[in-house]
Every structure is written in structure tokens, then in C-alpha cells.
């Protein structure tokens, strides 16, 4: 089955991005497809390549990037939400791309389920 994922909060401050990641890993392990994860609101901060967490903590940004590389998940950062918050091409982590909100609507239309994580 195809799942679309929507993430509304940034890394560390809220658990949303962690929960979404664990969900996506489990879904892929069970043979489902996760074609796209859409990052909206503060969720755009998950794509900040300058994020450097402490050595004994998980690296939320890198983990998404690695997953995209290994599993071909399309990580889309909302352009309007990103501009406002200063997540742009200059600081965009590898594996993410910036695009419009239409990409969220398409994910909702083209997936059998939309699963949302936020505050």
C-alpha cells in the first residue's frame, strides 16, 4: 500500500519527526511504499544541513537524508514555509528538494493513506 507522510514540526523540539521516521522505517520493512514525505510549517527545519546534534544523540536530518538515498523516498520541503523560516537551497540537506504545496495535494491524491505527524 502507498502511504503519504506529512510532518509539521522541526527536529528535536517535538517528537513528530521521530515518530514519522520510525513509522516510515516500519512501513518500508513491511513491504509498503512511502513515495513522498512532505515537510510543512516548522517541519521544514528537518532539512537544515547545518544541524549538528551532540554525539550521543540521533541525527534527525542525516537520518532522513540517508533514508532517501537508500529507499528512494521523495523528501519535499514546502517552498513558502521554507522561505519564511530560512530553509532554502543554500542550507538544504542532500536528499531533500524544495517545491510547492501542490506536492502535498498530489501525495494525498496519489497515496492510499495520508499520515500526519505534528504538535
Amino acid at each position: 500500500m502507498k502511504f503519504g507522510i506529512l510532518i509539521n514540526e522541526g527536529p528535536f523540539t517535538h517528537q513528530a519527526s521521530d515518530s514519522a521516521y520510525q513509522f516510515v522505517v516500519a512501513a518500508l520493512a513491511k513491504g509498503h511504499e512511502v513515495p513522498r514525505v512532505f515537510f510543512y510549517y516548522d517541519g521544514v527545519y528537518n532539512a537544515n544541513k547545518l544541524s549538528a546534534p551532540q554525539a550521543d544523540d540521533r541525527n534527525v536530518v542525516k537520518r532522513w537524508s540517508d533514508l532517501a538515498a537508500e529507499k528512494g523516498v521523495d523528501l519535499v520541503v514546502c517552498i513558502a514555509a521554507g522561505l519564511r523560516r530560512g530553509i532554502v537551497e543554500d542550507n538544504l540537506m542532500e536528499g531533500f528538494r524544495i517545491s510547492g504545496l501542490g506536492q502535498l495535494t498530489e501525495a494525498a491524491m496519489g497515496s492510499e493513506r495520508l499520515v500526519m505527524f505534528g504538535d
Partner: protein
Amino acid sequence: MLHTVNKSPFERNSLDSCLRLAKKGSAILLMEDGVYAAVTGTTATDKMASAAKGNSVYVLGPDMSARGLAEDQLIDGIKVVDYEGFVDLVADNDGVTPWL
């Protein structure tokens, strides 16, 4: 329909709104800080126990463990799932309503 509740029942109104607006018989997953609603002995226990009679209520095990909650404290009728169980719930229900 699967309803997800990720907030503490003591801090916010999310659980109340979910219980008011989830159709009888639908599935409810308590996750993140929402797992505090799944245990006995709190001021939220009564409403959750009552909801567990009319709905299928699940709680995310990894979120319980992180918060030091044990399975023997669970309200009767609430079932523990892991992330794979969460995925099954999403697949088996025909949609997800997030009470963020």
C-alpha cells in the same frame, strides 16, 4: 477510521475532542505524550476506560517504555502495538484523523 492522539490528556483537550468526534466503533491510537491516557489510577482513567468499551483503543509500546509506563498498568481493553502494529492499523483502517 484510525484516530491518533499524541497529547497528554492532562495538558490539552485533544483526547476529549477525539472522543467526542470519533465515530463509535472506530480505532484510536494513543502515541507520544498521548500514552499517559492509557494507564489506570489517573484522573483521565475513567473517560479512557469508558472509551475503550465503545472503540478499539491501542497504545504505542515504544512511547510507553520511554516514559516509564508498564503494561501491567494498562486500562482493560487497551492493546499495545509497536511501530509495525501502527503501520497495520493505518493499512487496515480506511483513513487517519490526526488530533494534533
